[in-house]
């Protein structure tokens, strides 16, 4: 539900109170954002354990640094930027080698293929984690820059300009990325038998899927 105007700047109010040591305000601030933060981590990292770790890390970092939040950006922008950075860091830690398609497949595909990488949880039955949907596989097949953009905009409903600010890229970049990411997702979902009926399958655009790293990250 969208909140009424009186509650719109509740973040500001809660931040002020939290800075003065009000732990209830801090709790409330957390609860206002936990869902989106967790789902951002979940959909970009692909499994609930890493997502919870990253969400925890990001919240702690944000709350420890509340004093450095100046209110120049929205709190949501600031917070989600921290989450994105934590998620990128996590992906880097999992993958000390330069990213390549095979390794990513090993990370993302539950029971899919050989490479055992990272946390060692890859062998866990995908049904247990509640994420055995084709969307997860489709998202994880995207290159990071595209995945983060499409998760922020299409799954979490961030406006393009805010997503651009969070990812530290131009708004136009966000738009062209989500356009290509959607086409790649459509192809992957169709392949998994899930896509809404499409006319034909032009295939993913070059560079969208994880054949190489994308350059930019934080700004």
């Amino acid at each position, binding site marked *: *539900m*969208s*909140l*009424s105007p009186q*509650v*719109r*700047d509740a*973040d*500001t109010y809660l931040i002020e*109170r*939290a*800075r003065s*040591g*009000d*732990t209830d305000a801090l*709790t*409330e601030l*957390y*609860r*206002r954002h*936990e*869902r989106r*933060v*967790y*789902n951002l981590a*979940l959909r970009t990292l692909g499994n*609930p354990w890493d997502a*919870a770790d990253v*969400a*925890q890390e990001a*919240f*702690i970092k944000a*709350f*420890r640094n509340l004093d450095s939040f100046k209110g120049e950006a*929205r*709190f*949501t922008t600031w917070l989600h930027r921290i989450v994105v950075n934590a998620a990128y860091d996590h992906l880097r830690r999992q993958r000390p080698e330069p990213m390549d398609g095979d390794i990513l497949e090993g990370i993302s595909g539950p029971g899919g293929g050989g490479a055992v990488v990272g946390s060692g949880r890859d062998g866990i039955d995908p049904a247990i984690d*509640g994420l055995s949907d084709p*969307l997860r596989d489709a998202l994880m097949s995207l290159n990071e820059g595209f995945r983060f953009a*499409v998760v922020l905009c*299409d*799954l*979490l*409903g961030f*406006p393009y300009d805010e997503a651009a600010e969070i990812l530290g890229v131009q708004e*136009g970049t966000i738009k*062209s990325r989500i*356009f290509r990411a*959607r*086409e790649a*997702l459509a192809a992957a*979902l169709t392949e998994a038998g899930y*896509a*809404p*009926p*499409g*006319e*034909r399958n*032009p295939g993913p*655009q070059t560079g969208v899927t994880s054949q190489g790293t994308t350059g930019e990250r934080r700004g």
Partner: protein
Amino acid sequence: MMIRGDQHVDDWAEVAVDYLDGQLDPDSRLAVESHLAGCPDCAARLRKQQSVVRFLQETPLYDPPEDLEYRAIGEIVFPSPGGQPLLGPVEAEKPYRTPNWYRTLRAWIPATVAIVALLAAVVGYGIARSGSGPETAASSSRAAGDLTTFAASATTVAPEATMTAAGVASTSAGATSAGVTSTTALAAGPPATDAAPVTLAATQDRKTMIRAIETAQAPAYVSFRAPVAAPTADGQSTATSAAGGADTTSTETQTTAGGTTETAGGTTETAAGVPADTMTLPTVSQDQAVSIVQQITGFTGLLPLDESMWLEGPTFAAFLPREDAEELVDLVRSIGVSLGLVVRVEGGPPAMGNSPSESLLEHKKSFAVLAAQRALQPATWGYDFTTSTLAAGTGEKSGTPMPDEAGTHVIVVIWIAR
């Protein structure tokens, strides 16, 4: 903007994104449309884009794991011994326990305090009166316990919230002679269970519910029911899902299991105030029923029908544009989840003696129109995730003929099965 004949959508992807969002100026839109008219390939790709966008937007978000809250803020709220306080002047020894009612109340306090308080008092009285004798007595004594808890916890929340909550309580106390029952019910607040493991029986899939309402021929019937708790090895979770008001304390116990001794002490004390007989058959408790009514009214402005038209409990009815089925389903599901109840789209009205659903439909001329009001994302500070909200009313269209019941609209009857 011009699109040359040889410029396919890859050359203007950013424009295509805005086109799909309906954000293009008329000239650009015309340029896109005239290209699409002559280019079946691009047109097909944009159709596919659109269906993917819809698929993604309809994908539900997952609930964060229960322990994330403690993991994320526990160290700040309860600094380890000898550790630096992570916030400024943290008050010492404050138990980590934000009352659940506080969370729910905040969402609808601003606009609807007075009307909801009054309504809750009246409906709460009605519910209490229609309940059986022993049950009412039990809930009264429990409510007395809750009031104590409420008073204690009120001192730990923000002054603004305390003030508001106190205002609510006094409003309803003054509004009716059923002061004791209604006031305490409200003070006890919605016994939210969203952190508790809930064994829901026959939970419906969100998309199934949306489709059922979108395609309903007769009125669409939506019920709130107590879950039928499946017998599990984990007796705790079974009791939790069934016990209505009692679960608030259980939840706190679980959430703060790693917390300080102060917290554990406070929780035990509260739990001791809950009579054991609330841990029996799963029913929608009075507190839960009041909370559902409060939330539906608070979020939509829709008022419950006259008691003579109730089905198995408090009942709402409205015309709903079929295209807004999703908003309604999301609302009732979120209310149901927060209370640990099952929300279902039923195949028809409940079988009852004097067929109240017929008399209900005789009054359909007086039903409100419940429609989603879509708003742009706020440009400044905001909690800008959802852009539509349901609101009841006739608006400027009052006096127009009844909404097209068979085609564009459907009557939705929502009731609480008690």
